[in-house]
């Protein structure tokens, strides 16, 4: 589908020079490199806490990229939720599971080479396809910003109200599920194991949505 879209926009993108990057593009490229580097360090470092901190860098870099793409609301949400809460949660998780501070020799499993092969193959395939499809497509960043809070809010509450409300239910379910799961199972309880098992399916859809 993206291929056909690309061919449709070939004629409209003729006015731009491929080898004459604008300032925005240079900034995007630099921040992108930092982001990618941070992400790579995140998945390769042997110090678990460092990984979380490098993740902060990567997620922050992405927020900057959103800004550069004029999606400012998303950028602030990114900073707030990811950098502010998710990473903190992850750090808490690391602490609670007594992850070692400092280098741990076995941070990577024996699956590393298979993972590398698959990842590189996927990267090559994706980059090839994407470049092939969008090599003549430009984003026009001039004019009014596409992602201001005003625009996003109007769109969200005009066209996306029902999913938005459903999302609140999902979040509630996730909240309950997380509490039930992480509650310490007491031996005299009627059957915490059964409660856990019963609530897992409720958390399942949320997990699936997130993974997608």
């Amino acid at each position, binding site marked *: 589908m993206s291929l056909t879209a690309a061919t449709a926009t070939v004629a409209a993108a003729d006015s731009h020079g491929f080898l004459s990057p604008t300032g925005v593009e240079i900034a995007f490229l630099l921040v992108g490199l930092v982001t990618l580097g941070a*992400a790579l360090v995140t998945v390769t470092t042997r110090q678990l806490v460092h990984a979380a901190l490098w993740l902060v860098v990567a997620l922050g870099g992405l927020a900057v990229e959103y800004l550069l793409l004029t999606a400012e609301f998303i950028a602030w949400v990114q900073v707030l*939720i990811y950098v502010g809460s998710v990473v903190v949660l992850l750090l808490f998780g690391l602490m609670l599971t007594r992850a070692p501070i400092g280098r741990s020799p076995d941070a990577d499993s024996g699956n590393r080479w298979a993972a590398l092969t698959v*990842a590189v193959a996927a990267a090559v395939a994706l980059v090839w396809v994407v470049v092939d499809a969008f090599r003549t497509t430009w984003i026009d960043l001039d004019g009014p910003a596409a992602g201001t809070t005003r625009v996003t809010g109007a769109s969200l509450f005009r066209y996306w109200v029902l999913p938005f409300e459903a999302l609140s239910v999902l979040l509630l379910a996730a909240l309950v599920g997380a509490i039930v799961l992480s509650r310490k199972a007491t031996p005299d309880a009627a059957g915490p194991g059964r409660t856990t098992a019963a609530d897992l399916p409720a958390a399942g859809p949320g997990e699936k949505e997130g993974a997608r």
Partner: protein
Amino acid sequence: MHLAYPAVLSALLFCTGLYGVLARRNAILVLMSVELMLNAVNLNLVAFDVWLSRTVRETLHSGQALTLFTIAIAAAEIGIGLAIVLAVHRNRGTSDIDKLRDTAERPESEGPDTEGPGSSAAEKAEATA
């Protein structure tokens, strides 16, 4: 701006996350890698939404809306995921993914008493992996 920049960055980030999911041993690091993949998708969504909102006048800003949903779901997911990891850690004493092998095929001769974490069956299965 050239659309290939965010698209390529997103693809590379996605594959980095993919590598992390497949290669990391600690479950929390796997969750971090999942976050990376989600963010790569988000970047794609935002970039294409911006592009489309300029090219086509009538748009629902669906990319940005979906990004918001994804972020919310990711937050929920990280909460549930961490709860699960904590529960597993409390029960099994480990949060290493490759030690959770209850679904592994065992030799027929072994009895049911050898099941469970840290047992000889699990060690053997790990050794053969």
